[in-house]
């Protein structure tokens, strides 16, 4: 049916995409293949990478799959690329948008009690946050946000109420 092994086609598709490739996109290219089959083939691929000592693997993120480096190589990669760290302010703004988004800058400022302009700019610049056009502009977290924080969807974030339980009342 296909000119190549489906497993290797899946590998090529994930390999060629910037960031995570959603499962539904894989299924679109390979009609007749089920989500479970994709998953088991990804597992097979990871087994091959493991057995042949590859420095990368496929991981789940943003309702799909993406290639990432294996943990042991971080120190070498870091020598080429500065690690990416968010300030506390940016993390707070990101948290507001993740939990309350889509929301306006005013909403964010109100919750944090301070102006969030520069953090917002940083987050938009790093593509962790998307802007929804309109008046006023509204902000939502992006696909890259899910990738960076290893989430399939925002629903995987713990509830704010759960935090209450975990940390108790201040």
């Amino acid at each position, binding site marked *: 049916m296909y000119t190549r092994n489906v497993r290797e086609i899946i590998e090529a598709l994930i390999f*060629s995409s910037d960031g995570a490739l959603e499962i539904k996109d894989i299924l679109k290219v390979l009609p007749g293949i089920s989500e479970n089959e994709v998953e088991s083939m990804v597992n097979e691929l990871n087994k091959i990478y493991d057995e042949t000592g590859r420095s990368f693997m496929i991981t789940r993120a943003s309702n799909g799959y993406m290639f990432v480096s294996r943990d042991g190589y971080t120190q070498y990669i870091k020598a080429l690329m500065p690690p990416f760290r968010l300030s506390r302010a940016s993390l707070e703004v990101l948290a507001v948008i993740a939990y309350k988004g889509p929301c306006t800058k005013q909403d964010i400022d109100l919750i944090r009690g301070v102006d969030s302009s520069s953090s917002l700019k940083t987050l938009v610049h790093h593509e962790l946050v998307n802007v929804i056009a309109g008046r006023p502009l509204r902000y939502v977290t992006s696909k890259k946000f899910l990738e960076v924080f*290893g989430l399939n969807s925002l629903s995987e974030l713990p509830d704010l109420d759960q935090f209450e339980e975990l940390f108790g*009342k201040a």
Partner: protein
Amino acid sequence: MSSLQAGTEFVLRLPRFEGPLDLLLYLIEKNRLSIEELELCPIIDQYLEYINAVRRLNIELAAEFLDMASYLLWLKSSSLISINSGTEDSELVNPMAELKEMLAAYRGIKIAARNLNERQLLYRERFPKGRTPKVEADVSKMDIMAILKAIASIRERTKHYVVSIKRDRYHIREIMGRINSMLQKKKKVSLVEVAETRVKSEIIAIFLAALELSKASIVRLVQKSIYGTIYMVRRSESFTSQNKRDPLRYK
């Protein structure tokens, strides 16, 4: 703890506070109280003391810290009034509740931010695959109507006929010239040989040119069998003597 010590500590720690709500939460925690007990404790006083201490040191404070200071001052005075007068004016009670709500909401976000920070995997422990050159997308399939519409839009804009009868007339003249020069080199040329592109209209034009040359007695058209190759054979006498009629002037 004396207020001076507290003030000194605050100055040293100032950069850690993201805003007035952050500072208030810090004070509530430090006093081992809950947000609910905000008004029962010296927190408002401590906040104001800190702000004053910082201002005495001429350290620039974000406007929000000062806004909160005046808000807290106002809250303090209005609560004193409300206690003294014993009224149940909701407008005097609500601001404190509002502030508590804000503090609770901000604390939730603060914890969520800390949680996000712990969750960050990419660009810390793992790195994503780098971007490599993209495979080029295919041109989307289209209907020939798109071409016709394009022609219509050129015509509408320029009043030019893209595909005009005039163009065919020129084409036939040109092809007659082409055949003529080919027949100077050899005696016999097939119709197919003349074609450069095999575009339908060119084939038609070649055929018309052949008929025209035949009419002008410059060539003889020869076809040995049905569907066989059609040849144009040079008529020797007419080729040398330029006819009374210019064969290249096609009407």
